[in-house]
């Protein structure tokens, strides 16, 4: 079982009384070839992206497997770009993890950078458990951990008891029926 197996298993069958919190840190290393042509031709540069963020159940959308569709989880990841300098502002990108319908569990990560869309097969590194992959000649490491936090149990809705009959008597009457 990998961290991705754990994520999808937990989302498919959430335990009672718990909520799921997904925490992640992402980095991007590699050489990105921009689609834009600079004055001297296509621009090629090393690009670094540092993204940190905490994703909670409330902001996490899980799509269970359906006929003809695979299971996927989607969440927002804040990104802080160290390079290029024009992208120093922090923004968010939607990250989609897809569980592929293959004999052996395999996963795909999709998200958008301002200059290109990134999609790659998610590989889990041992022993760190960090999810990584490469696309467009860049290597992305997306560190994800799955944490479960206890959540107060829901109280049963108030049930009115008719006057003159205690809950105990009513229970006995129901039992005799």
């Amino acid at each position: 079982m990998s961290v991705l197996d754990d994520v999808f298993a937990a989302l498919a069958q959430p335990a009672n009384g718990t909520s799921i919190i997904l925490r992640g840190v992402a980095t991007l290393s590699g050489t990105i070839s921009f689609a834009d042509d600079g004055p001297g031709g296509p621009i090629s540069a090393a690009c670094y992206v540092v993204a940190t963020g905490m994703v909670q159940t409330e902001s996490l959308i899980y799509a269970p497997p359906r006929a003809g569709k695979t299971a996927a989880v989607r969440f927002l990841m804040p990104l802080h770009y160290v390079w290029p300098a024009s992208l120093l502002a922090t923004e968010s990108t939607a990250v989609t993890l897809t569980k592929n319908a293959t004999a052996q569990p395999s996963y795909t990560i999709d998200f958008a950078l301002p200059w290109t869309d990134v999609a790659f097969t998610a590989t889990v590194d041992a022993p760190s458990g960090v999810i990584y992959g490469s696309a467009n000649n860049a290597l992305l490491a997306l560190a994800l951990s799955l944490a479960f936090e206890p959540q107060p149990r829901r109280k049963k809705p108030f049930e009115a008891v008719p006057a003159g009959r205690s809950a105990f008597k009513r229970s006995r009457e129901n039992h005799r029926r």
Partner: protein
Amino acid sequence: MKLDGPPLSILDDAFAVAAAAGAGILIEGNLTSINVSGLVTSVYQPSPNSLLGGAPATYDAGPPATLQFDFENVHYSSSAGASLPAASQFASVTLTQNRRTPGTYTMAVTFWDGSHIGPAVNVQSEAKIDTASGVVYGSGAAQPFLTLLIKALP
């Protein structure tokens, strides 16, 4: 990064460049874990008067041959998700050429505490190379995950 003969790997090339006089190496990288992130730009160059910037990397011919550089401004994230810069904390990275198995390398990361008195955590792993991107990476224990982009300087 062109040397005599076909290149074996980016790390073979980097160590060959460092061993030969006249050329330099640019090392850029990321440090990733749930609670720690950091960036490095480091330069190994025989000539000290270059204007390329970056913290200096050091090469020791050994044996075993080693390349060493530091991560500065390593950020430690709190449990609430906020990234808290800790300027006094840094990590040292050492790439070592394995003598018994040519073409293989180890990557050691030492996290230093704020007092700089002694190392807080040591992590050692094999330095792997991603096929598609050529990025060097490695990890040890539960975390962290280190990626390095190594290029020859003109």
